[in-house]
């Protein structure tokens, strides 16, 4: 399906979209202050990488990129479980998830 599609749209468009999404994710991590929104931005970065991997894979007719995408999705799920657990543990002690207020550790 995507192979037919790829005859019309060149690789550049997929990669540009992927880079735009990645940049949105990076900017989100840098400017937002809520730990959960930062985490969502990180997920956006990972998914933009998935897009570029799949488009490379599809245009080269090689399956390795798609295999890595499955691993990335599995890892992102595991990371989400651990990350949210850490955020909950912190919220129980501190009652905030604003990272500007999470500042005990500093020299």
């Amino acid at each position, binding site marked *: 399906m995507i192979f037919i599609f790829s005859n019309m749209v060149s690789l550049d468009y997929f990669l540009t979209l992927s880079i735009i999404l990645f940049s949105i994710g990076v900017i989100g991590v840098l400017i937002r202050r809520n730990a959960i929104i930062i985490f969502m931005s990180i997920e956006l970065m990972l998914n933009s990488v998935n897009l570029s991997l799949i488009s490379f894979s599809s245009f080269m007719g090689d399956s390795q990129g798609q295999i890595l995408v499955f691993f990335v999705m599995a890892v992102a799920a595991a990371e989400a479980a*651990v990350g949210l657990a850490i955020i909950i543990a912190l919220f129980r002690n501190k009652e905030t998830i604003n990272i500007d207020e999470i500042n005990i550790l500093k020299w």
Partner: protein
Amino acid sequence: MIKTIDFLNSIPLLIISVSAVITILVGSFYKKSTKYVYAVTLIALIAAIYYSFGYLDKEYLIYNNFLRVNNITTLFSIIALFAVLLSTLSAKAYIEKEEINFIEFYSLVLFSTAGMLIMIQSYNLITVFVGLELMSISFYILTGFLRKRIKSNESALKYFLLGAFMTGFLLFGISLIYGITGSMSYANIFQDTSVFKNPVFLIGSALFMIGFFFKMGLFPFHLWVPDVYEGAPTTITGLMSTAGKIAAVGTITPFIVYTASDNFRLIFSIIALLTMLIGNVTALAQSNIKRILAFSSIASAGYILVGVAAMNDLSIKSVSFYLLAYTLMQLGAFIIVSLIEKPAEGINEYRNVDIEDYKGLARTNPQLAIPLTIFLFSLGGIPPLAGFWGKYYLFYAAIQSNLIWLSISAILFSVISLYYYLKIVVYMWFNPPANGDVYKIDSMPSLSILIAAFLTFLFGIFPQYFFALFKTPFK
């Protein structure tokens, strides 16, 4: 197709991963079995080290070229396993003291070890990624293991957010390398050297390396190190600062040395210089011993990069020797810090980790002060100890590649570092005791301290024993 012979050629990895799964299964049914799980963990680690020695001087590609066994990977695996073994030996006393004696602790340590082995032995970008994430996710949980303590929570959150952020960059690098070379396997990536000049490939490999530089704590990506090392449970700090770093260095060093081109030597040299500067100078102003050791670990990453930047035949040899010496001295120091630390009564603080608390330690607890002095001297690079030869080989490798200015500045920084190491020694030996506490030492931690101190002397006096392990020279 996975062949049966592949299993025989990856016994240490199988032992570690199977015991990790078994321990967590047993733990979910029998909550009281911590003692047995501790024993199983130690046996698994010792068995893995024992079988790893059998792979020296061999050369295999296993699991359809996904993993590679050769001298370099075996050597780094043995050092990493050894670091995990030493820190697990001493961990039991600490986690009992802090009342976090759960089975998951050992299981997560084993999972992270499996990740390290996969990462070090990887011959494919997919296995690099999977191994790195297995190690990192286990470390995120272990960092926040003291879950009633805000510092531990906070350091876990910082480590997690920054680590996941950097994973994004690493993956983007992998996708660019894949897009240019059309393959994830190192065999195909390194086949055609003309691709190394392609700008997209360079951006890709730079992003890939950034992911590892973050794990190693090199200069622009070092900011998480002191915070996370201070907030994590002390035995976990020891584990992360040694085994985690060995895994990252062991994965990236062959990559850099294979793609070596003289054009990038300058970039690595500058990063090494700045890392040593930041690590050593900032450590001067610290008073918390965990933070001092954290900055010393940043500085050590800088010394390691001096050897990597040399990119010649001596690089891998000198880096691996330094990593072994670094494991002994850094981990030994962290084990002693974990013994001196007192359990907190409230929820918030790690107690007894300020260097003021180490005043007069030699008078009250000579059995802790003497080994700590040995480790600190070794970290400072004082001769007949292993740390001296570690630095000697690294700087020698750099001089062989005409990086004389870098070697001289590294030696100068090493002299600066003596100030903060010797400050602790002076506090311990030449000040009146701050309090009369005598710390209880169990047999297991003292065993690991003895091993570390003995090997620090052994490799300090006979460094050639280490290199005698290998009959065939490194590539």
